[in-house]
């Protein structure tokens, strides 16, 4: 069966968009082919900075004929009805219709229509322009003469050519499928490497296309380009006694910047190695898209070496000496800036006199660089959020809250306060100004350099954690305290100005902040009633996030609902989790299952009677018991209620469950032998009151009616 080769060649496509675009092209084209009635054996997409390519194998040459029957009127119908039928079926004469018979209707007309299949060429010629026009680029543009008219073609960058051939695998010549989009006419011509092979290349099918591109210095397959870069980078590092610091995101990006990867090594002066490794790596990576290396066998968290690895797009006529020289110059200039930033941040600010007031407000030691930066942050009045005041005001709140929370978490309040006061001090530093993603990391380094307590220094970095479901949760009590204070302040603040997350919109990452609080409390086993920090609405937001968190960890959502429905300590996230766990294990046991069934039965009877308006006694009256099982159930309920309440009080939820489990037998015995709906209304009311006690007792732990199964 024939193969289809499609290449859309354009000016340089942003690296970050290439992979998805090629995938979109495959999906849109193959979906369109299938919808048009064609089948294919396989489809594979490829991309380089200058082309998206699709290789479809084993495509049918034609779609099948489609037969359709249209039922018409009875053969004895009036002429007007017959004419209407002919128009509908597209027939010119009734003689073209068939006569069918049916025992009920008698004889009637049927049009037998055949929609002939279409050639694959025709389908492709129609499909490709539609796909190009509707292509989902994240950002697209118009260009050239055509852009004078409204509705002109949009593409990520100017589209230059369309290559589209279709033909048998072997033997016969594939032919060009003729397509035109906004003046771009398809053909069988493409171009290789921009500088190494500027001449046109004529291709037949995928196999010679790949080979000819390769000869024209284009590696079509991005995975191969990645492998070449990774392997060559490792080898060149190894040969120099170094190890590549691997960086998958950078590798992906770099592979999207070259068609013919050539890996080279450059270097910079060792004096720059006094800059933190993170800063060197970011400088070289963000600005130059180069990899860094470390000494062979070096600690992965340790320093980098003064050699970096770059990927050129040409085999330079001088072996790459000029390219290495040029890149080295730029890297050096950037590192020289970074070193300047690093040193400036550790020096005194010129305007220390103006910082005294801020120094007193925060209890800062203005002889220290980071303290000066905090004072400056305050004095500059940098806005945190228009309605939530300045960063300085926010730090004041966080420091106060951290001091309050410290005893609950088990942290030294003075250290917690100090850490909170310095938590945002690195924001106005030069290094963080250059690399905002290093906030916290840099604060920690400067804090250690000015002799802060290690826990305080660590908290400057860790109070931003956890940044999501898989990020590490801080454990040092000082970090935990400041992290909680920071997140509470954010959540409470945005709640107060009614900027809550809605649907997919969560611009201030409040869901992440709430999840952070949950993970810190639960994973560190910290009990902390939230009611004194958050209002009811925010608490229910925490409950929602907790449900998501627990569901992700495999807990049943009905158990979470059942626990949250009780009023007992439902503002303490850790206790909620423990209760859900205890309830889950209890329901795994026979006692648990039966008690659940018994409680549900009691609740159902009560609900039915309550609906009918049957009288339920205010309290159970032992004198009105008629059966022994009533008496023993009542005794068991009293006992279980007392024990469960005490256990809950001690936050020993297993013990609470154990207390409830002793209800199982008397409840079963009661339902087996006693008829609740006694004819005597007084006895009935008393028994219903007893059922109410079962419901009330179990609900000290969870609302059993919300539990499924």
């Amino acid at each position, binding site marked *: 069966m024939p193969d289809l080769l499609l290449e859309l060649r354009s000016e340089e496509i942003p690296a970050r968009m290439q992979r998805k675009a090629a995938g979109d092209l495959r999906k849109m084209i193959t979906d369109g082919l299938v919808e048009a009635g064609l089948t294919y054996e396989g489809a594979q997409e490829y991309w380089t900075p200058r082309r998206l390519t699709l290789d479809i194998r084993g495509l049918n040459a034609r779609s099948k004929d489609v037969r359709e029957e249209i039922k018409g009127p009875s053969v004895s119908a009036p002429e007007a009805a017959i004419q209407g039928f002919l128009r509908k079926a597209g027939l010119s004469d009734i003689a073209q219709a068939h006569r069918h018979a049916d025992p009920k209707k008698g004889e009637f007309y049927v049009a037998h229509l055949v929609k002939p299949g279409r050639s694959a060429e025709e389908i492709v010629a129609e499909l490709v322009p539609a796909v190009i026009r509707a292509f989902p680029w994240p*950002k697209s543009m*118009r260009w*050239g003469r*055509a852009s004078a008219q409204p509705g002109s073609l949009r593409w*990520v960058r100017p589209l230059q050519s369309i290559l589209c051939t279709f033909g048998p695998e072997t033997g016969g010549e594939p032919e060009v499928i003729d397509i035109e989009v906004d003046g771009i006419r398809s053909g069988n011509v493409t171009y290789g490497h921009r500088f190494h092979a500027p001449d046109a290349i004529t291709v037949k099918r995928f196999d010679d296309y790949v080979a000819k591109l390769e000869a024209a210095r284009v590696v079509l397959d991005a995975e191969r380009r990645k492998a070449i870069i990774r392997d060559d980078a490792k080898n060149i590092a190894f040969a120099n006694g170094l190890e590549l610091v691997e960086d998958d995101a950078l590798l992906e990006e770099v592979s999207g910047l070259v068609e013919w990867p050539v890996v080279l090594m450059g270097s910079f002066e060792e004096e720059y190695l006094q800059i933190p490794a993170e800063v060197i790596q970011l400088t070289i990576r963000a600005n130059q898209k180069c990899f860094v290396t470390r000494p062979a066998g070096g600690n992965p968290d340790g320093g980098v070496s003064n050699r970096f690895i*770059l990927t050129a797009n040409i085999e330079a006529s001088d072996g790459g000496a000029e390219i290495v020289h040029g890149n080295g110059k*730029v890297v050096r200039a950037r590192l020289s800036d970074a070193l300047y930033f690093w040193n400036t941040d550790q020096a005194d600010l010129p305007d220390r006199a103006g910082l005294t007031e801020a120094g007193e407000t925060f209890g800062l030691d203005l002889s220290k660089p980071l303290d000066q930066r905090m004072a400056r942050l305050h004095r500059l009045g940098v806005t945190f959020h228009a309605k939530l005041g300045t960063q300085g005001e926010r730090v004041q709140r966080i420091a106060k809250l951290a001091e309050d929370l410290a005893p609950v978490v088990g942290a030294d309040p003075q250290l917690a306060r100090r850490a909170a006061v310095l938590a945002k001090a690195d924001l106005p530093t030069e290094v963080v100004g250059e690399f905002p993603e290093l906030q916290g990391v840099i604060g920690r380094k400067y804090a250690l350099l000015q002799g802060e307590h290690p826990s305080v220094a660590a908290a400057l970095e860790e109070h931003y954690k956890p940044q999501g479901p898989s990020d590490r949760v801080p454990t040092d009590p000082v970090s935990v305290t400041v992290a909680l204070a920071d997140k509470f302040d954010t959540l409470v603040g945005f709640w107060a100005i009614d900027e809550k997350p809605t649907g997919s919109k969560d611009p201030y990452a409040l869901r992440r902040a709430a999840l952070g609080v949950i993970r810190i409390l639960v994973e560190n086993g910290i009990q902390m009633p939230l009611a004194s920090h958050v209002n009811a609405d925010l608490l229910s937001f925490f409950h929602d996030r907790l449900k998501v968190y627990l569901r992700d960890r495999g807990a049943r959502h009905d158990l979470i609902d059942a626990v949250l429905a009780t009023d007992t300590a439902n503002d303490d996230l850790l206790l909620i989790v423990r209760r859900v766990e205890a309830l889950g294990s209890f329901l795994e046991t026979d006692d648990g299952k039966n008690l659940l069934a018994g409680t549900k039965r009691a609740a159902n009877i009560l609900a039915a009677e309550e609906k009918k308006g049957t009288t339920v006694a205010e309290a159970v009256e032992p004198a009105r018991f008629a059966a022994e099982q009533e008496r023993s159930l009542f005794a068991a309920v009293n006992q279980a209620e007392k024990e469960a309440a005490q256990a809950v009080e001690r936050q020993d939820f297993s013990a609470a469950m154990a207390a409830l489990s002793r209800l199982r037998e008397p409840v079963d015995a009661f339902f087996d032998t006693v008829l609740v709906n006694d004819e005597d209304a007084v006895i009935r009311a008393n028994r219903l009151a007893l059922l109410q006690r079962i419901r009330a007792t179990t609900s000290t732990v969870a609302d059993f009616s919300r539990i499924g199964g």
Partner: protein
Amino acid sequence: MTATTHFHNDPKRSFQGLILTLHAYWADYGCVVLQPYDMEVGAGTFHPATTLRALGPKPWNAAYVQPSRRPKDGRYGENPNRLQHYYQYQVILKPNPSNLQELYLGSLKAIGIDPLLHDIRFVEDDWESPTLGAWGLGWECWCDGMEVSQFTYFQQVCGIECAPVAGELTYGLERLAMYVQGVDNVYDLNFNGRDGDEKVTYGDVFLQAEQEYSRYNFEHADTAMLLQHFVDAEKECQALLVAGAPQNGGVQRVIFPAYDQAIKASHVFNLLDARGVISVTERQNYILRVRNLAKACGEAFLLTDAGGYVARSAAA
């Protein structure tokens, strides 16, 4: 040209030779070679030959050098790479020709950058000028890892869709010259391509000015006066647009002078920003005010002959 003058004007030897080579290259293509605009601007894009001429249907090909002033980038002449006054070489081609990338690469070859020796790359860069209400898609052009030009297909200018789209090339001349001359400090650039006593460096020409303007930008500029200048320029711009407003289907009669005031407001804002008297919240507001002026100018330009407006005859 004799062999000697050619030698002195070799773009690898002389800063002015680099400019002359680019002029010759783009003049040869058919651009009108303009002189710098005689007002303070932050970038070559502000020249009305780009901002205004990018609008409307009329073809327009121009090239010029534009001194660009970025008060905040002043470093008292102490930084080898950063200047508060530098040169941009600006090319605008409307509509963009389909081989604009090849034309650009041709210009690099003309100044001595061989693409089989140097690694030339087009790296994604979405350009946006909030003050001009303009954006476009294109690239930073890299030579051996250094950004030497910006390449943009204008999509919108002054808040107006470009139809047709213009291609804009902006070369950072000092950077490019440092690269081709192999110099690490901008002040060491050979300006006139001569040697010995005859040699004039970039520092000879500009170092003192950089020091003085840094003092002015950061220390001495009278902020109260500048704040008043901003308000005055804003008012004048609006008043001129009203004064020149089309009557009876005619054309807008005053646009270039109004646009000058928008440029002035923009530069005054940059000076105020460098003096640190504009708070974070106010900053956005000032940018918006300049953008509103630019938008009004762009819309007015479309009602002029250069903007492609065909006036209705008085009789009709």
